[in-house]
C-alpha cells in the first residue's frame, strides 16, 4: 500500500524531507520504522531511539505496535513542546 509519511522538527531535519509517499507492506508502525531504518542511514539516524519519537496515524497519537490498517497519513515527530 501507499502511505503518506510526514516528519516534524529534528526528525524532519535528520530525514531531510518534510514528507514523502512510501510504498510498504508493513503491518504496524514498528514494522514500517524497521523497514525505513533498513533502507537508508538517514532513517536510522532519525529513529535510533524510538523512546523520543512520537507517532500519529491520521493525526491521532498512537503507540508503536499499532496496526497501520487503512491509515492515509503517518507522522513522526519528537515529544511536543507546545504552550
Amino acid at each position, binding site marked *: 500500500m501507499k502511505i503518506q509519511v510526514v516528519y516534524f522538527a529534528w526528525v524532519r531535519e535528520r530525514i531531510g524531507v518534510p514528507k514523502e509517499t512510501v510504498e510498504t507492506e508493513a503491518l504496524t508502525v514498528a514494522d514500517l520504522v524497521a523497514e525505513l531504518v533498513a533502507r537508508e542511514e538517514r532513517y536510522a539516524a532519525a529513529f535510533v531511539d524510538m523512546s523520543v519519537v512520537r507517532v500519529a496515524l491520521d*493525526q491521532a497519537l498512537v503507540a508503536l505496535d499499532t496496526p497501520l490498517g487503512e491509515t492515509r497519513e503517518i507522522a513522526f515527530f519528537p515529544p511536543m*513542546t507546545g*504552550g
Partner: protein
Amino acid sequence: MSVRVQETDFNVGEELAKLTSDRVDIGALVSFTGLVRDVTGDLEALELEHYPAMTQSALEKIEAEAIARWDLDASLIIHRYGRLEPGQQIMMVATASKHRKAAFESADFLMDFLKSRAPFWKKEHGLEGAEWVDAKEADEDALKRW
C-alpha cells in the same frame, strides 16, 4: 469556546473583553499568556513549527476535555506558530466560570495538555546556532495530576 492557530499576534485584553462582554453570569475569568523568554541572553528568535493538519483538532480535543470536566461559561485557546522574538507572545488560554476554582483549574489543565499534547515544536535560534527545545519530563508527569 474557540481555538485559533495563527501566525499573527493577539491582544490579550481584547480577547478577554470579548469573552465577558454583555454577560452577567461570569464571576471568574482566568488567563494564561506564554511569552518568549530569553534564558541565556543570546536568544535571537524562537521558531515554532507545527503540524497544520493536526493542530486545530488537537487543541479542540483538549478544550472539549476541559469543558467536559468543569462548568465553564467561556474558553479560548490561541496558539501562534512561526518566528517569534524574545518578549513576544506565544499563546494564551482563557477560561471563565461562575467560580474561581473551576476557572483556575481548567486553565491549568489546558496548559498542561497544550505543553505535551499539542503538535508544536520549538527551536531556539541563538548567536551560537540553533537548537530544538527538549520536552521536559516534568511536563509529561504533569498530565498525571488530572
